[in-house]
């Protein structure tokens, strides 16, 4: 096995394209999973089974089936129903949806960890329910769950190559194409391996900074 620096520099233009796509998937996918997960967690607290049962069933289903199956399903079945999106948009939504079923459990734990005395104080002050959520409960719950959400961001990063299956060219997709064209595997795969580590590390630094900012 020989290491060839010229292969690295040949790969770089493709690498940057792939990196951009990977980051798009990660950032937008994370946001989708944060928002949807919170929506699920809040819906599951409604007192009516007409909401909690379907939400529970759907999220349980999504959590317990492979992301890859969901990617194929959304990519090939949605167009049959007349809903056509780009492969990237479909992939980002699929990964965001998949991870939202994990983040919803993180939020649930965070919400339940807010002491009951906080609810009682809000009642004693006559705060409306919506205000109790937005000003008292959620700020405390979210602060508690930032580290756990961060773990899912890292996990999601490592799942981004799955979007290759629906022809999204992220880092691994570009590395694979390059390898097949140039018969050089070591350099592109090493480069993207390093890139994954660097992105995880930067993401964890960012999340730690966020944690500190939210501390009170």
């Amino acid at each position, binding site marked *: 096995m020989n290491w060839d620096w010229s292969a690295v520099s040949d790969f770089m233009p493709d690498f940057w394209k792939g990196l951009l796509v990977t980051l798009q998937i990660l950032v937008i996918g994370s946001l989708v999973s944060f928002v949807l997960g919170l929506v699920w967690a809040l819906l599951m607290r409604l007192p009516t089974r007409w909401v909690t049962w379907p939400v529970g069933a759907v999220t349980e289903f999504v959590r317990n089936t492979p992301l890859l199956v969901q990617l194929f399903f959304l990519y090939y079945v949605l167009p049959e129903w007349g809903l056509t999106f780009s492969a990237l948009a479909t992939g980002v939504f699929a990964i965001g949806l998949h991870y939202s079923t994990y983040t919803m459990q993180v939020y649930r734990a965070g919400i339940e960890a807010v002491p009951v*005395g906080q609810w*009682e104080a809000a009642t*004693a002050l006559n705060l409306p329910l919506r205000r109790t959520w937005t000003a008292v409960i959620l700020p405390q719950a979210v602060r508690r769950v930032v580290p756990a959400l961060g773990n899912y961001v890292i996990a999601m990063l490592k799942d981004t190559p799955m979007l290759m299956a629906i022809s999204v060219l992220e880092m691994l997709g570009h590395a694979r194409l390059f390898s097949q064209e140039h018969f050089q595997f070591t350099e592109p795969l090493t480069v993207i391996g390093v890139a994954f580590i660097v992105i995880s590390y930067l993401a964890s630094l960012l999340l730690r900074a966020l944690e500190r900012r939210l501390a009170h």
Partner: protein
Amino acid sequence: MPTDTLPNPEKNPARSTGELIRLEQVTKRFGDHTVLDHLDFSVDAGKHVTLIGPSGSGKTTILRLLMTLLKPDEGTITVDGEQLFPAPDKQVREVRKKIGMVFQQFNLFPNMTVLRNITEAPVTVLGMSKDAAEERARELLELVGLTDHLDKHPAQLSGGQQQRVAIARALAMRPQVLLLDEVTSALDPELVAGVLDVLRDIARSTDITMLCVTHEMNFARDISDQVLMFDSGRVIESGPPEKIFSEPEHDRTREFLSAVL
């Protein structure tokens, strides 16, 4: 002390006199355990009433029922002539505005500064302007002796300071009734006096009705117009503090007092 910031009969002619709180035939059970058993109980406006008795006798349950943190299984609760239970939600929210509560564990909002803790409800519930609410918060913080701390978060304060903020927060809503649920039980001994002094001040200088569950018998003797001795969900003896503490009639009262005094 800025007494004009507190409920005052001359400035508030609408304030009712006579009976303010009435519980009729109130029963509360937890599972098989009956905590309150067809309790009848009333408090006149402006009175300071202390509930004493062994733990589990239902004192705190009464405060929690009045704050609507619990619902009775039977009976009715009326505050200032309006029914609090049973009542539709909208009415509960209206009637509940007349009541404030201070908790054993303070229950300040840790994500907010001291100032925001106090202004949050006046702004969002009473519709006060932010400026007016902050001005009032400053006056109340002066009353409880904490003017230097308004930009701190609760975690930066001692337990006694937190509890004094909680008192200011409750008073900011101008309640007619203040419920005090063992407000010094969670405090280190050296911090108790500061909190009790603030409450003595408020009891002396305002016409606010106080309902107090406490194990601080000296404090109860100082501020109470009436002391109610609870045992097993019933009031077994009531009267002015001089009488209850000096010449209790009931054996259970004597036993209880000799155990705590």
